């Protein structure tokens, strides 16, 4: 019998995998998604331009990359705002800790947030 947390983990990983696969050509699908409301839990890649979120977790299969994100200030409890989107839809420029950081959507999909506005 699998316990609940293992199941939840597996579900998270599955969602994550599909997210990563779709991250590139996701725009069309995203148009159908509603704008997220404050208080909802989501991934950083779900935010639209101008929206802010509170980071609640940073995951990444690539340990070095995760480390880099932590070093750049992407830690639990930090507020991030989506500022600019590259003309081709990816990467995204986000504001955190008073500066701007560009990051690919596929990596943003691995950052959990709680929507602020």
């Amino acid at each position: 019998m699998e316990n609940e947390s293992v199941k939840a983990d597996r579900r998270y990983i599955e969602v994550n995998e599909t997210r990563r696969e779709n991250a590139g050509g996701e725009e069309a699908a995203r148009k159908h998604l509603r704008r997220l409301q404050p208080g909802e839990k989501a991934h950083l890649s779900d935010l639209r331009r101008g929206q802010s979120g509170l980071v609640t977790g940073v995951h990444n299969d690539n340990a070095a990359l995760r480390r880099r994100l932590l070093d750049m200030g992407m830690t639990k409890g930090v507020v991030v705002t989506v500022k600019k989107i590259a003309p081709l839809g990816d990467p995204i420029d986000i504001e955190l800790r008073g500066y701007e950081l560009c990051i690919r959507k596929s990596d943003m999909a691995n950052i959990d947030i709680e929507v602020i506005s």
Partner: protein
Amino acid sequence: MKIALVGNQNSGKTTLFNLLTGLNQKIGNWPGVTIERKEGVIKGTSHVLVDLPGVYSMSPYTVEEEVSRQFAFEERPDIIINIIDATSVERSLYLTTQLMELDGKVIVALNMCDMLEEKGIHIDEKKLEEAFGIKFIKISALKKTGIDELIKSLTLVGQDAEKKKLFPDDVEEYITAAERAIQGKTPHKRFAAVKMLEGDKLFSALQTDELKSAAVKLTEKYGMDAEQIVANERYNFIVAAKSAAVTAGQRKESITDKLDKIFLNKYAALPIFAAIMFLIYFLSVGLVGRYTVDAIDSLVLKFGGWLSVALRGVGASEWAVSLVVDGIVAGVGAVLTFVPQLIVLFLLISILETSGYMSRIAFFLDRLFKKIGLSGKSLIPFIVGVGCSVPGIMTARTVENESERKMTVILTPFIPCSAKLPIIALFAGYFFKNYSGLISASLYFFAVGVIIVTALIMKKFAFKGGGSSFISELPAYKFPSPRYVLRDIVEKTASFIRRAGTVILLCSVIIWLLASFSWDYRYGVDIGESMLAGIGNALGWLFYPMLGEWSWAASVSAIQGLIAKEQVVSSMEIIAGLAEGAGGEVFRSSVFSFFTGASAYAYMVFCIFSAPCIASIAAMRRELGSTKKMLAAVAFQTVFAWLLSCLVFGIGRFFEVVT
């Protein structure tokens, strides 16, 4: 005393380094301009200052960041000057919290303080000193303020007594225990202790079972892994210190945001970029060339004429006069003809590099380049390479992913660099007179096309590395400093002229000798019987398919591009001069009169895309890390260029025949 300059990328380290040492190292406005350590002596002292590549943390993520970490750790500087972008203290101070854990003194230089008022930020550096227990000094490397105080503080003692401990008590307990356990086994024990908590592989030899279980207890207590605890607590400490010391004004839409609305506009971004690259080549070759090339050409001719009269006047023999006038003056003069065009090119590139636009290019083309197996950051080497391939190739180090980085190294020499500009200007100026600017710009876009195609080929067959990422800071736009731009142009132009006076001069002498003597050492033979013609004839078959003509002269000139690309032009000028007797138009001489538009374009394509000059090949070898890979890359480039130029000639000649 050895002093290290450490700071984030793009925080102004090199500007401060240049200011303190009086040297002129390359600066720019994109993260990662400095890729190797550079040393200098601080003016008026005997302190050695080392400029290191920018890092965001002491856990290196790219090759060039490793340089900084190794230096700080292994060479153990007496003092670290930690330079910080005062307009973005929160992220910048993260590195400070790590540097404080190393042995030795840390002084924080709050740079760009001239921008604080404009941004409505106030910083109380005394409060920061209290919180961190180290010296903070406000400076502006650009406006040269606070520098004297910074130099003075280097020799003051006792001000650095108490570096504050920043972690919560339970983490500090672990650190104290770890420090005790590794006592005497490693330098920088506090730093090592924290790294052990994080489980850094470099320190795994020092681990003990007790420490391991203590670390596990902490992660259970905090509900996250150790790396996250450490990063979180560092930032918590910084936020607390910042809230006491820094008051930020009202944020209004900055000029950078406004400019980005244009430069990063969904529809305009690509056209603007294309227009900028077009203008760079169009202006430098087309616009200026029209006025300067003929003027300098006739000046060189007059000088040659005057010199031959003067030399004959003092009784120089015929061959000596020919060596000086037809060899050296013609060869070196041919290259110098294009200096005004190069100055324009250097000016435009320098403005581009210091404005902050480079990071935008990387940002908005990343998606496209990801598709072909490169990173958006590969664009930066491709643009630096417009000036010279060597720094371009080295800049590839900022690309994180290994296969993306190696592909970038191999592709950068395809970009038409400043040394290839004389070739383009010579051919385009004659065969496409009114469209020379257009033709030279077309070659840049041709190069971009070639890069995309070859990248796809390499991705398919040679490099299959996945899992890449793109993380980059987007710096604010800056107005390029005229003082720096001017110095940059002077330096690059001087180095081109220096090369003309050394390498090109030497080659001119050799080419003259080979062109003037036959194999049985007779002087004054017809150039068709010279040694040079013999060498060229041995190579003629290689170039026949792209020229449609058996030309020893064009063949022997093209291979000299290996020495330096501008040597092609120099060689052609010398051969043409000797063939005709007196100087004059290169393409009117009997040896080069066969060139038409099609063969001219094909010849340019070969010269641009084939094996780069020897300096670039050496840089490629360094970055690829093996002679075998370097040889494979050079062979690939040359074969590819040969096929391409034959194709170009075929198509071009078809249209020439038809019309």
